[in-house]
């Protein structure tokens, strides 16, 4: 038996969803070159609940940096104490062993990359490049029961950074992977996030490419 599966628009019932719902939609891509930071703003709408930044081949201008992100509200970066973060289960596999740690309570969120695995193992200019994602759920979120005056926006970092070349005497056998999640954006007043800013803890972003996707509601 053979046939063609079509969408079920206008059908009274069916098992196949109508076309046009769901799916990851690329919203914008930018290539970075010698900037202090990159801010994405104005892309969050009610069409999406989940947004994913894919950060490819990002390299700092100087060695041993951590990659940060900061939330934006009303088209500006925010750094108040309302924006706590927690990261957990960051993991580094190196030399056949795994180290794992937890951090949290910071008013900005970042991958504390330089702390895990080997000394001086942060983002470096001479590394093979890695792949990082930041997922944000409910950036526009308003409060709801049982706490209608406060809204939480959830974030999750994930990264993979394989096969580092020799650096500070280390062999090219380290393999970094990990994830960190947390609720960032405890926001009295239900302030919606309007975007995110990416930057290193100091110095410029030398190169990199960031694409923002939205997961379209079904």
């Amino acid at each position, binding site marked *: 038996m053979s046939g063609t599966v079509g969408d079920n628009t206008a059908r009274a019932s069916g098992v196949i969803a109508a076309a046009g719902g769901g799916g990851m939609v690329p919203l*914008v891509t*930018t290539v*970075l070159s*010698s*900037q*202090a*930071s*990159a*801010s*994405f*703003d*104005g*892309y969050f709408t009610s069409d999406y609940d989940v947004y994913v930044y894919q950060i490819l081949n990002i390299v700092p201008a100087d060695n041993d940096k*951590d990659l*940060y992100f900061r939330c934006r509200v009303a088209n500006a*970066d925010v*750094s108040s104490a309302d924006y706590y973060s927690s990261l957990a289960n960051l993991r580094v596999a190196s030399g056949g062993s795994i180290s794992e*740690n937890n*951090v949290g309570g*910071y008013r*900005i969120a*970042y991958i*504390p990359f*330089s*702390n895990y695995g080997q000394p001086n193992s942060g983002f470096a200019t001479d590394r093979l490049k890695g792949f990082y994602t930041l997922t944000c759920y409910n950036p526009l979120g308003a409060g709801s029961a049982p706490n209608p005056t406060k809204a939480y926006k959830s974030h999750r970092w994930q990264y993979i950074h394989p096969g580092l070349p020799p650096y500070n005497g280390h062999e090219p056998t380290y393999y970094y992977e990990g994830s960190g999640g947390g609720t960032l954006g405890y926001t009295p007043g239900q302030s919606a996030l309007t975007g995110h*800013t990416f*930057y290193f*803890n*100091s110095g*410029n972003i030398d190169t990199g490419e960031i694409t*923002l996707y939205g997961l379209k509601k079904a």
Partner: protein
Amino acid sequence: MTTKIIITPENPKGLIVALTAEEEAQRVADAEASVIAKEARDAEDAQKATDKASAKAKLIAGEALTEAEADTIVI
């Protein structure tokens, strides 16, 4: 001059602008805070490594462990 890039639906290719004085100040504060945070993390990691090594030695010798040492080997 330090610049940043802002990507918006109106400027999807990005608008490159100079940092404001406030942003420059925040950038300095972030860098300083990151050094302090990294030092704290490094110290914590070093202490954990010390406790773990001590816990192993004490287990082999049949000696009592401190709580911090026990924490390094209890899953």
